[in-house]
């Protein structure tokens, strides 16, 4: 192979089997979807700025909440993590590329088609899916708009893409590690992705199964979820959340890995408790399979069921607490400097913990009857997903961007972006706790007068947060176009194989495996 470089023009991107190219494609696709999903969110927040109906009709509002959720979960967060895995996993374990490069190309290139199909349903008669991202039956079967069939096929394609991506990551990690790179020497980002990939293989087929059942109920006369034919709509919720709960960990575990890479670098200390981090991640992954019904406390479960799912859910706080403790202890008495990736990582630790605490409140079954389907739930999962998954991804971009493109980003601009995002996010989501506890239901286009003040604050925050992400795009493009040249190690005390290769990373790396001590 030698100095064999990338092909010229568009065919480079269409036919590429290079893990770095595919990682770039994933990341740009994810960013595009992040902006699209963000626009949907801003439509929601604009409508909720005042009580009453101003901008959109309730039917369209429901399409916006649904599409915002679906696009952010399946279009923004998941592909961003797969993109990071593509870029980083081979470089971190000293592999020349992913184990299955052609399948890698395919798993990316089916994604744009899935989202084209799903987003195009906004323009068809009857409108886009309007049943919420959790698509509960019978809203998504008996009462669904005709476009639900497009949605089902889009989910099938996304599922296939995720499964292929995960198989690739597992095959790479299991077979292509450099000599001496034992499992317990792997960087934590690799470990968390390894476990995430298993979660994906376990639950994406279940998601494919549940949408297939919907398809059969809608078009082939079966009654999986129709009580009239002997089925049960509650069954839908059980199957959905059997997928859905591991899915929320799929969206957070790789972010755990990212901050576990970044915090030691900027604390200038090795990570505290590496082994316990690995075991905690594995425990969280295992527990994620036995807590799904805490999303359904109000469906009428027997007391024993409520208690089991309540306790199992609270048990998750133990391994998560281990992780938070380890990050804090890594920083303790470290020689800390506050570059942009570190700022995002520290905000991650603090704000994710707030989201974790509100999760514990929701886990208390008797209290959940009060909080269920209110804005408190919205506040909770946005606190774990925005400063959790999204801040994790942004921290990763700032941390590894100099390695990818060879240029340092502008630290002042990066810090400005961080503070704008940090303030915007808290102004948006913190008031939602209050309106939620006061009883404002989620997924409604209009609300009672007493919620107006907090909703106005949230809407202002949302537009600030949205605008600062356009600024983020500007920073990234500016860095790619030019800037101060990055050194090979980039950061003063960064450790790991990816920092031993030149910046920018050559098109082919580790064609001869490195020796790991």
């Amino acid at each position, binding site marked *: 192979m030698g100095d064999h470089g990338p092909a010229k023009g568009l065919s480079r991107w269409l036919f590429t089997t290079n893990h770095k190219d595919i990682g770039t494609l994933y990341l740009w696709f994810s960013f595009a979807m992040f902006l699209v999903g963000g626009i949907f969110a801003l439509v929601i927040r604009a409508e909720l700025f005042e009580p009453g109906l101003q901008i959109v009709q309730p039917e369209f509002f429901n399409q916006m909440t649904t599409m915002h959720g679906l696009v952010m979960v399946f279009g923004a967060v998941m592909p961003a993590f797969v993109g990071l895995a593509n870029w980083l996993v081979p470089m971190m374990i000293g592999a020349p590329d992913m*184990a299955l490069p052609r399948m890698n190309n395919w798993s990316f290139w089916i994604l744009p088609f899935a989202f084209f199909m799903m987003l195009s349903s906004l323009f068809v008669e009857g409108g886009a899916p309007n049943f919420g991202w959790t698509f509960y039956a019978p809203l998504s079967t008996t009462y669904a708009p005709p476009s639900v069939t497009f949605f089902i096929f889009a989910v099938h394609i996304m599922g296939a893409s995720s499964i292929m991506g995960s*198989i690739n990551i597992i095959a790479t990690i299991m077979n292509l590690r450099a000599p001496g790179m034992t499992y317990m020497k792997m960087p934590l980002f690799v470990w968390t992705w390894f476990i995430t990939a298993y979660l994906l293989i376990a639950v*994406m087929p279940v998601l494919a*199964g549940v949408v297939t059942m919907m398809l059969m109920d809608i078009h082939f006369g079966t009654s999986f979820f129709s*009580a*009239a034919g002997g089925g049960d709509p509650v069954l839908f919720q059980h199957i959905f959340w059997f997928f859905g709960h591991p899915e929320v960990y799929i969206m957070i575990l790789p972010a755990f890995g990212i901050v576990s890479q970044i915090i030691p670098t900027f604390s200038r200390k090795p990570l505290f408790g590496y082994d316990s981090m690995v075991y905690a991640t594995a425990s969280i992954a295992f527990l994620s399979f036995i807590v799904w019904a805490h999303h359904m406390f109000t469906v*009428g479960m027997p007391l024993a069921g409520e208690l089991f799912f309540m306790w199992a859910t609270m048990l998750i706080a133990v391994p998560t607490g281990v992780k938070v403790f380890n990050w804090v202890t890594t920083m303790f008495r470290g020689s800390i400097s506050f570059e942009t990736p570190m700022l995002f990582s520290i905000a991650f630790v603090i704000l994710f913990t707030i989201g974790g605490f509100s999760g514990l409140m929701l886990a208390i079954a008797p209290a959940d009857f009060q909080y269920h389907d209110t804005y408190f739930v919205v506040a909770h999962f946005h606190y774990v997903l925005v400063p959790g998954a999204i801040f994790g991804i942004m921290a990763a971009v700032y941390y590894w961007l100099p390695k990818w493109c060879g240029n340092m980003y502008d630290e002042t601009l990066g810090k400005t972006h961080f503070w704008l995002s940090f303030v915007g996010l808290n102004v948006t989501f913190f008031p939602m706790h209050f309106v939620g506890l006061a009883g404002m239901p989620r997924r409604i286009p209009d609300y009672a007068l007493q919620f107006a003040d907090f909703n106005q604050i949230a809407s202002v925050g949302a537009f600030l947060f949205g605008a600062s992400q356009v600024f983020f795009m500007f920073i990234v493009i500016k860095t790619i176009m030019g800037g101060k040249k990055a050194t090979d190690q980039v950061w003063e005390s960064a450790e790991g194989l990816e920092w031993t290769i030149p910046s920018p990373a050559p098109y082919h790396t580790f064609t001869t495996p490195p020796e790991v001590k």
Partner: protein
Amino acid sequence: MESSVKKTVRNALFATVGMFAFGFALVPIYDVFCDITGLNGKTSDSPYTAVDVAVDTSRNITVQFVATNNENMPWEFKPAVSSMVVHPGEAVSTEFFVRNPKPVSMVAQAVPSVVPFKAAEYFHKTECFCFNQQPLDGRSETLMPLRFIVDVDLPKDVKTITLAYTLFDVTESFKTAAVDASAEAKQAVGTI
């Protein structure tokens, strides 16, 4: 491709297919789980064969009947009596009244649910209109029979059992099924 990679991929694909199948297996698992435990108020959907036991006259159980129409179901639907007092082990019969106000014949399916859930497995129906789909001509009415036995093993703390029926309009799916059946019959005739 290296054989070790092949092996990993093969195992991962097996796991994927297995989990897809597991998703579908959750449907019968859910039914069986609910049947065994009586969770969800599910009662058996086939007739119970009465066994000879002594009627426990020392206990009085109030059985309440609730009849609800699923949305868009135009039939009038109500129990003949709204509640009755029975002894465990005693075979009891009652009726539900239905009237189809529409000019066309329709088919209905009643779906039962028992509260409290833990009483579901002790509530045996020897005959129930809910075991079958119920056709009814336009502008006509009928009484639908229900015979049941409350099990003598019913937990002591249960004093009241509520049996709720929801009536669904299944005319459309009944028609489709009938068309399918007649098409199959014709095909069968054709092959002969």
